[in-house]
């Protein structure tokens, strides 16, 4: 509490191996409450692996991850989601056969828990809960600007639109921290611009954000702090300005990007 921000997510000494391949080694970093942190690095640097460890999809060989003081080791993904730590995915971002609106209703699972008998008997509490969920789903559809597509199957949407549904789904789960895995890949410049506004908006609601992304201008403009991974190791960490000028980073990763900038 002596520092500017309380620590939300704490990653300590995390290592992951796939057979002989070291995907992550000795990973240490923290994310403060209300901060936007980006995790960058070349393809295969271990970014998605790190995400999978933090959200319980993968058990680390050693090391520990804790969120708001709760150790996440051994918890199942849905239990971690219950702590308010919600992620999006690079590829699989929607329930393809359901409408956008129904997607969000599924995403609102954490808000809609009523007893089985209440639901089956259609008791007032279950009906009221259902009404609230429907209102909330409509709000979320509006918030990501997909009203026109609300009743289309999510699988029929464009790639960029599906990413938006993915984010809306994550938000439906009421995260206190959001992990976004390459959210703007496949988006055009104007879609990316809108998305950056969306991320700032989410943060202003008090949600902590950890971002994995390849789009350097986007990362530089949105992040409070950047963590750079290469071959499973953290090679640099700091505010965007420092990262932009770090010689190790330029050599490992930003070479072309820095030259262009």
């Amino acid at each position: 509490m002596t520092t500017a921000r309380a620590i939300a997510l704490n990653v300590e000494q995390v290592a992951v191996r796939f057979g002989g391949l070291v995907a992550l080694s000795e990973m240490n970093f923290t994310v403060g409450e209300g901060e936007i942190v980006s995790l960058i690095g070349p393809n295969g640097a271990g970014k998605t692996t790190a995400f999978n460890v933090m959200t319980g999809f993968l058990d680390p060989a050693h090391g520990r991850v804790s969120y708001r003081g709760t150790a996440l080791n051994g918890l199942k993904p849905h239990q971690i989601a219950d702590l308010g730590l919600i992620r999006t995915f690079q590829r699989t971002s929607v329930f393809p056969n359901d409408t956008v609106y129904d997607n969000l209703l599924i995403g609102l699972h954490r808000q809609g828990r009523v007893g089985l008998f209440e639901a089956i008997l259609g008791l007032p509490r279950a009906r009221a809960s259902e009404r609230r969920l429907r209102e909330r789903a409509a709000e979320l559809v509006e918030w990501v600007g997909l009203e026109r597509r609300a009743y289309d199957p999510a699988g029929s949407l464009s790639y960029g639109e599906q990413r938006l549904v993915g984010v809306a789904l994550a938000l439906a789960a009421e995260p206190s921290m959001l992990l976004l895995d390459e959210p703007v890949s496949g988006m055009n410049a104007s879609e990316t611009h809108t998305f950056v506004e969306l991320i700032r908006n989410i943060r202003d609601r008090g949600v902590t954000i950890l971002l994995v992304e390849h789009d350097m201008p986007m990362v530089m403009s949105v992040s409070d702090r950047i963590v750079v991974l290469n071959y499973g190791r953290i090679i640099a960490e700091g505010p965007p300005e420092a990262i932009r000028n770090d010689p190790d980073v330029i050599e490992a990763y930003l070479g072309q990007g820095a030259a262009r900038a």
Partner: protein
Amino acid sequence: MRAAITILTLAAFASVPLWLRDPYLLNALITTGIFMIAAMSLNLLLGFTGQLSLGHIAFFGIGAYVSALTSLGFDIGLPGGFRLVHEPWPPIVGFVLAILVAGLCGYFVGLLSFRVRGAYFVIVTISFAEVVRLVALNWVELTQGPLALTNIPSITIGLPGLGELTLRTKFHNYYLVLAVAAVAYLLISRLVHSHFGRAMRGLMENETLAVSVGIDVTRTLTLAAVISAAIAGAAGSLYAHYIRIIDPEVFAFINTVTMVIMVISGGKGSLAGPVVGGLIFGLLPVMLRPIMAPEAQWIAYGGVLIVILFVLPRGIVPSLAQRFAKRKRKAAVVAVTPVAFSERAKEPA
């Protein structure tokens, strides 16, 4: 609109015994109805969670045996020289116990197999049905084995103001089956439209995404298995008290196959699917019997199945609903389609 169709269908079914005088056909309708309830329960698992139970008849048969034994009573020896004696209880208690015991079996089978799922679930359910069949066949002291349990009493219900009514006739049993089917339909409908049902659909469509928004896989699938097994148990109990004789052949694999055919042909994942599929494949053998030689009947049965799946591959109800919706939307869609295509073109392959 949907509610109107449901009420009209229910009214049509309810009117049948008033004008149908043929007891043979009425009997066929009652057994079809019982299997339709079982098919509905299978659809809850197969259509809404994507898990195929190829031993579903086990829950049906367990319901039948539990209900029959509760109402007949039994006297068996236990290890250590003890005897377990059960005096007959009213069949309606058997009906309730059938639901509870079948549901409990669904819980254990679900808990055992949903950690791995898919093909493992199929195998565990098949083995479970086979084990239960062997128990029913060989525990002669309890089940009479191949000699069958006979003289199972009919269900007696207490009606307010009318006293007790024993449901002995086909007329009575038809309405009993119709009532249970309606309740099962309503229950499944409420369930799949609640957040439990949405959790099931989410898991079926994209499990990784579903767990990431906080859906508990084991809990959701086990719940579906319990309710599905309990409904199948209820159907089994109705069967035992209507037919009034059961033997281990009730567990035959062909009975599960019949249920699967009813669900797939009618449309898995559609509430009305098992009703439509159940009617067709429950009554088809009865309809074919007077007009064909026995060997030709089964060829015709298979032929009808192939034609349905060829013409309406997603099952009768979903395929027809889709065509109907398409025709209705066609005019409106013309203006929108070019946009949709240009947007799709942007997607990477």
